[in-house]
């Protein structure tokens, strides 16, 4: 078993998350894709932690989870607010500001 496989997995998940941000329109799904990217990063951290043989990576992953939780709170609050104003959770509808 090669630990590198985890890294490939992380890269794939990260890519999928990034694509999700681009292709999905529902703000919540977009946000979930971002969470997916963070999770991919966490997986990379954990894997590297194991490769490097120290726990710093795991600490980072832990911090990431906490920070991500905060981000989720703020992000969802913003999404709800905009949903309440616009009656739409589509990120495409929020395009007043452009050019």
């Amino acid at each position, binding site marked *: 078993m090669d630990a590198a496989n985890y*890294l490939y997995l992380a890269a794939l998940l990260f890519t999928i998350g990034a694509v999700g941000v681009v292709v999905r329109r529902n703000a919540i799904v977009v946000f979930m894709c971002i969470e997916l990217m963070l999770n991919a990063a966490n997986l990379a951290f954990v*894997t590297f*932690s194991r490769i490097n043989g120290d726990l710093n*990576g795991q600490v980072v992953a832990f911090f990431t989870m906490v920070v991500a939780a905060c981000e989720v709170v703020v992000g969802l609050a*913003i999404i709800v*607010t*905009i949903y309440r104003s616009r009656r739409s959770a589509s990120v495409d509808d929020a395009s007043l500001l452009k050019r």
Partner: protein
Amino acid sequence: MEFVAPVLNYTLLSPMLILLGGALIGVLVEAFVSKALRPITQLSITLGSLVLALVQVWRIRNEQSMTAAMGSVIIDGPAVLMQASIIIISIISVFLIADTEHFTALAAALPGSDEERHALQTGNQVTEVYPLTLFAVAGMLLFPISSDLITLFVALEMLSLPLYLMAGLSRRRRLASQEAALKYFLLGAFSSAFFLFGAAFLYGYSSSITFAGIRNAVVGGAGNDVFLLIGIAFLSVGLLFKVGAFPFHAWSPDVYQGAPTPVTAFMAAATKVAAFGAMLRIFYTSFANAQWSWSPMLVVIAIVTMLFGSLVAIAQRDVKRMLAYSSIAHAGFLLSGVIALNKAGLEASIFYLFAYGVATVGGFAIVTLVRDSAGEVTDLNRWKGLGKRSPWVATAFAIFLLSFAGIPLTSGFIGKFAIFSAAYENGATSVVIAGVLSSAIAAFFYIRVIVLMFFTDPVEDGTSVEIPSGLTSIAVIFSLVITIALGVFPAPVLNFISDLATFIR
């Protein structure tokens, strides 16, 4: 493996602690102080803690420490300079924030609803912006002094989250404001994912998450550098996003336009200092020895950013968007300070950041003053003849614009000169030439605004300049004085920077 109790050097951390303390008090004020008293209380607390923090920064100006917070932060000259710059810019911004009329009366109320109208009538204010500001400032103070990836990431989020929120709190054009918040948030989170992913690879490469450890790994240079390169690239994506460099700039015009103008001013100025501070530190210390790998990348990004910002700014019709693109161009100029990778580059960047930040706050302060019955007027066509109606406001704005354009005797010129000199010294001639070219392009749109204000006859459409309230006046005058003083007598500040600007590793 015995647990050793952590030792924190509270003196060195005090600027941040003071601000966090102030923010916490602010939160308590929200809970316990009557509505009527809240604005003044919050303002006093905010200003007080900022000033106190500044004093504290001054007092630790000659300190150097790698262990102030168990190795999580570095206190050195550049740290002090960045922190001082951020605090000064924040103080000016707070004057703007404190002025009435910018923030929604009740963020939870639907735009156009009775509830909102009622809240407006009763003079309700979202005084939470003060603690949010303080949290953001604290994050900004932490960002450029972080010395490991965890702290860097936490600081990044800490400065970002309050800004995401504050971007959505505009009183007028609330839908646009909320949209700005959404865009800022989504893209910010997106970019911080890249940042984190990059951090993971750096950790993988160096088996350390401290800058020093990364530096050692880079110097030691074992194996091939794929992990390092990926790490640098993705970390840069996060950082470049924050500074608004092409192609990671796209959020900034929309957010600058949508956010309440004081917030725009604050984030345009202070965030840039913080982000570039962090960038300078990490590139100057950790990645310095891998210059071959990132320098070409940054050169290309810097050149494209300068040109892109300048070119697109020409085509703008909205003053806030124009300033946003201008700030993109300036991000390009500032990147040449990173590319310079020498002491001159560091000094120049710090000077530039401060000068640009102050002028930016001043510029946006003027934007808050130009309004009609529906609030701020940002359509440039309606700025016509401003010089006729309110010569002083227009003159002040013109001076800020001239500073952006880098006309001598303004701070912008000294900054531009210094930063391009530093880049040239490092042989980045292409950046200097692109910088000069895009400065010429940029001059075009700055001057066009001056033409609009001074040489075009006013249209009678109700646009008027609000008589500046005391607070905004203070902000404008303060910025103006600094902008001119740094243009005419930059020597003391330059010397001060020069004495301090050395990263410890």
